[in-house]
């Protein structure tokens, strides 16, 4: 089992969700995040003072999947999030030692989906 963590542009969340649904990945968790990446930030002005904003708004996805679902999930995220521009985001994959469904106390593979 793997835990997939993805950072994407906020406005792409709907597209990514669609792509994941099509790939039959229907469970996920979403948080707000600020990110610093290759997209160096941009210049805002406030009251005439130029300000470099280098923590950009991002969406953080966390998706736990069984091993055979890793590639489809990654592909779906890329499909939904890619625009070709800097700032499109990144995907991190971590080994998942265990997964437990609270309601049923099921563990492992069956609990994930």
């Amino acid at each position, binding site marked *: 089992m793997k835990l997939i963590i993805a950072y994407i542009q*906020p*406005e*792409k*969340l*709907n597209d990514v969700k669609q792509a994941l649904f099509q790939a039959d990945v229907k469970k996920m968790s979403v948080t*707000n995040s600020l990110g610093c990446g290759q997209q160096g930030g941009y210049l*805002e002005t406030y009251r005439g003072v130029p300000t470099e904003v280098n923590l950009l*708004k991002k*969406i953080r996805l966390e998706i736990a999947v069984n091993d055979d679902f890793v590639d489809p999930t990654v592909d779906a995220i890329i499909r939904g999030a890619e625009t070709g521009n800097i700032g499109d985001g990144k995907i991190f994959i971590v080994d998942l030692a265990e997964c437990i469904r609270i309601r049923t106390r099921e563990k492992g593979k069956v609990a994930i989906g």
Partner: protein
Amino acid sequence: MKKVVKCMAVLIMLMPAASPLLAQETAVAPAATIQPINVVWTLVAAFLVFFMQAGFAMVETGFTRAKNAGNIVMKNMYDFAVGSIVFFILGYGLMFGDSIGGLLGGSKFFLSSASPGSPDGLWQYAFWLFQCVFAATAATIVSGAMAERTKFVTYLIYSMVISAVIYPISGHWIWGGGWLSNLGFVDFAGSTVVHSVGGWAAMMGSIFLGARIGKYGPDGRPRAIPGHSIPLAALGVFILWFGWFGFNPGSTTSGENLSIGFIAVNTNLAAAAGALAAMATIWIKSGKPDVSMSLNGALAGLVAITAGCASVSPLSSIFIGLIAGIVVVLSVELFDFVFKIDDPVGAISVHGVCGALGTLLVGVFAEAPYAGEGINGLLYGGGFRLLGIQALGVLSVFAWTVVTTGILFLILKRTIGLRVSKSEELRGLDIEEHGMESYSGFQIFTNQ
């Protein structure tokens, strides 16, 4: 004084009811003691109507998304700023200047009718301010329907044109001594003059813009795009209701005219009834007393009673409010589900539809003891005569507004463009158009 047509019209309209009193007063008290109360009343009412700008700003901000909040308040502030200046230069003259064939005014530009040297000259200033805040109300209605996707600079130009030309001309027909007023059309405080003009302009703007991204699914079904601050929206409705006590009773532009009392009562009762009816309607239809629709209901009642507030009884006001409250819900759904015109705050239904409705209902509910001798609606023995005139007025103003704003928005679309780019819309107009966020530090899901 004879040029102050609206005020005159009102006085005449109310004469039969209040005339024993008014006549007497005029006879006994010297003219000089009469003026101050009228100036004070008109100014205080104008201040209240000005404050409605804050109400519109809060309603529209509250009903839209956080990422566009700064843009909305800018539009609300600047349609008033631009409107004040152009109404001073041009609009007031077109509306209240000496009538050219009953179609438009042709004098009083730059407020040249006013002067600091005489009581009447001084009175003109107060009257101008009252009219100016009305013009701005018509303009600002549109910002809500066009919210979250309109280019800021385009909006500034639109608001200049409506305040300078479009609103004043139809206003002239009704309040400036134009052809509709001569026919006996009754629109005491502007259900048609102000609200319908704003509402139909909002409709055209919304049509030319198209819906917000995400408003209609691939299947064409509407989706909810919830507003980001119900408390601010509710505050806005309270402010509007408060300001309407200037809008309607103030439209006597005379504090001596004791009718201001029942006008205020009618205004309040129609608002209350509108709120109740809208809540009941949406409750029945969707199973929950939806907050935002309920707030719209109060406004619908207020808009609808605006035309007839000086012509109907308090009980009729309750009925007018109830009808408007039901109609506004149906109308919002009609525009949303059937016409698929995306109006984030319900401006078309509240101001356009209920403005027209309220104007027509004068032809049903008007009663001579309130409206003045001989002015009776369908229910009070007046037959279809008044209703017919009202319908003619409603249609004329609809046609005028749809055509002129249609041309305006078409030109704007073809030239500088109406709408921001897709990515600007997604990221929010605050960042893209104004370079800042409205809620700095707050964590907000901007994907919505």
